[in-house]
C-alpha cells in the first residue's frame, strides 16, 4: 500500500489508542485504527471482546477512559451522539432501538427530518417534512412495504433490525457504524442486505464500519477486517489474511 493511500485513510476517521475500563474490566484496551473515505471496514471478535464498547466510545454514547477520535481532521472525542449525528456520523444498534409506537414510515421520516431546515421551518413544514418520497423509496429498498403503516414495535425482531438500519441511512450519513446488522435477519435477506450496503456505499459514497459474527458476510463485504480479542486489536488486514491467521483461528473462529 502506498503512503498516499495511508494518508487518505488517516484523514477520514482516525481512532487512536481508545480505552474504556469498567472497574477492573478493560472492555477496550488501547484500540487504534483508520477508516478511509468510501471504505468498508469489518470488525470481528469473540463475544465480549469489546466491539460494541468501542463503537459506543467512538459514538459518544459512553465517554472513553482515554484515547482520541478524529473525523475529517477534527477531534470528535467525547462529543455527544447529537453532535456526531450532525457531523454526518450515523449508527445502528446491536439491541433493538426503534420508535416503537410510530409507524415504520414515521420511523424513517423521524430519522431524517432534523437534518433539514430549522426548528421554525420544521414547525411549519408539511407533516411528512417533505421526506415522504424518500422514506417510501427506503421502505421499498428494505422490502418493508407491507408493514409500512404498522407501529414499529409490533414487528418481528428481524424487521425492527431492518428499520434500524434503514433509519441510519435515511439522512445520507458520511460514516455509518453498524453493530451486527445481520443478527436475526434471515439468510435470504442477509445476502440482500450485503448488496444493499454495497449499493448504498456506491450511491451515497459513505464509509461503513461493520461489526458482525457472520464471517461469510464480512468476507464478501469488507476489503479490510479488524479482529479484536479481549479489548485489543489482534490483527488487521484483508479478510483472507485475517481469516487464515492462526491466532484468529484459535481465539475466535475455531478450527
Amino acid at each position, binding site marked *: 500500500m502506498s503512503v498516499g493511500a495511508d494518508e487518505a485513510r488517516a484523514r477520514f476517521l482516525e481512532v487512536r489508542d481508545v480505552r474504556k475500563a469498567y472497574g477492573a474490566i478493560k472492555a477496550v484496551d488501547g484500540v487504534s485504527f483508520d477508516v478511509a473515505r468510501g471504505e468498508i471496514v469489518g470488525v470481528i471478535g469473540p463475544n465480549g471482546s469489546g466491539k*460494541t464498547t468501542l463503537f*459506543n466510545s467512538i459514538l459518544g*454514547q*459512553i465517554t472513553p477512559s482515554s484515547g482520541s477520535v478524529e473525523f475529517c481532521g477534527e477531534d470528535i472525542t467525547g462529543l455527544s451522539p447529537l453532535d456526531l449525528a450532525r457531523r454526518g456520523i450515523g449508527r445502528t*444498534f*446491536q*439491541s433493538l*432501538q426503534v420508535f416503537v409506537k410510530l409507524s415504520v414510515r414515521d420511523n424513517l421520516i423521524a430519522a431524517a427530518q432534523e437534518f433539514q431546515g430549522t426548528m421554525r421551518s420544521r414547525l411549519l413544514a408539511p407533516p411528512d417534512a417533505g421526506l415522504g418520497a424518500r422514506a417510501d423509496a427506503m421502505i421499498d429498498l428494505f422490502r418493508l412495504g407491507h408493514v409500512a403503516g404498522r407501529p414499529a414495535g409490533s414487528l418481528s425482531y428481524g424487521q425492527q433490525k431492518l428499520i434500524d438500519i434503514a433509519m441510519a441511512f435515511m439522512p445520507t450519513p458520511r460514516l455509518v457504524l453498524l453493530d451486527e446488522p445481520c443478527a436475526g435477519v434471515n439468510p435470504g435477506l442477509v445476502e440482500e442486505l450485503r448488496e444493499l450496503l454495497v449499493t448504498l456505499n456506491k450511491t451515497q459514497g459513505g464509509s461503513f464500519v461493520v461489526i458482525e459474527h457472520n464471517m461469510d458476510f464480512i468476507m464478501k463485504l469488507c476489503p479490510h477486517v479488524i479482529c479484536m480479542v479481549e479489548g485489543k486489536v489482534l490483527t488487521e488486514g484483508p479478510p483472507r489474511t485475517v481469516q487464515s491467521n492462526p491466532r484468529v483461528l484459535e481465539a475466535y473462529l475455531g478450527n
Partner: protein
Amino acid sequence: MGELLQLIVSGTAAGAIYALAALGFTLLWQASGTINFAQGEFVMVPAFIMLFCMSAGAPLWLAFLATCVIAMLLLGVLFKRIVVDPLIRHGVIPLVIASLGLSIGLKQLMRAGYSAQAFPFPSPFPSGHFAIAGAAISYADVGTLLFAAIIVLGLQAFLERTVTGRAMQAVAQNTDAARVLGIDVRRMVLYTFLINAVLAVVAALLVTPAYLAKFDMGDSIGPKAFFAAIIGGFNQTRGALLGGVLIGVLENVVGFYVSPAYKEGVALILFLVVILVRPEGLLGKAEERKV
C-alpha cells in the same frame, strides 16, 4: 447555642422517621423496581389500625405487634399480589399511576369511612425533658432516635449477616444473576415488601404522637420519604438515612430561623438542588445508560 442543639436533636429524631419510610422505599425499588407513591398512606393506615386495636383494649405494645402482622398481610402481601405483580411488567409509569390511585383511595376511604378528624396517639416514650448544655431535650426525641437506630441497625445486620439477607441483597443488585445462583427471587422480593410494611408501622408508631392520626397525614410523610431517598442516593441504603436526617434537621432550622411558613419547602428545594447538581444523590453511584 442551646436552641440550635435542641433543633438539631429534634430534627434528627424527625429525620430518623423520614429515613425509616425512605428505607422501605429504597428497598422496594432496589429489589423489584417498584415506586410506591402510597408510601405516606402506608404510614397512615397502620397508625389507625393501632388506634383501633387500642380502642379494643389492647396496650400499645400489643397493638403495635398486631399491626405489624396485619400490615405485612395488607401492605405487604396483598399490595404485591394485587397491584405490583400484574403491573410491573408494563414498566414504571402504570405502577406509579396505580400507586397514586391507591394513595387517593386509602386516604379518602379513611376519611369517608371513618373520620376526617385528627386523633391523639399515645407516645411510647415518657413525656418531659432533660437539660444538656442549655438545651431542653425531650425524652420522646431521644426515644425515637434510639428506637429508629435499633431498627435500622437490626435491618442492616439482617441484610449483611444472615443468608436470607445476603440473598435479598443479591436480588437487589442483580436479579438475573441471583436467579442463576439459585436464589428464590420471588420470595426475596416478597420479604422486601414485608420489611417495607414493618418499617411503615414503626414509622407510624414514632411519628403519630406528634403528627396526630389523620387521614391525610401521609401527604407530608410520603413525599419526604422519597425526597430523602433521592437526596441520599436511591441505590444506596445508607443514602436514605442521610437524606432523612438532613431533611429533618434543615426543616427545623429553617422553620425556626427563617420562616415556619416555608418549612415544608425545605425538602423540595434540597431535592431540586440535588437532582440538578448530583442526580445520583449524595452517596449514590452514577449509573451509565446501557445501550
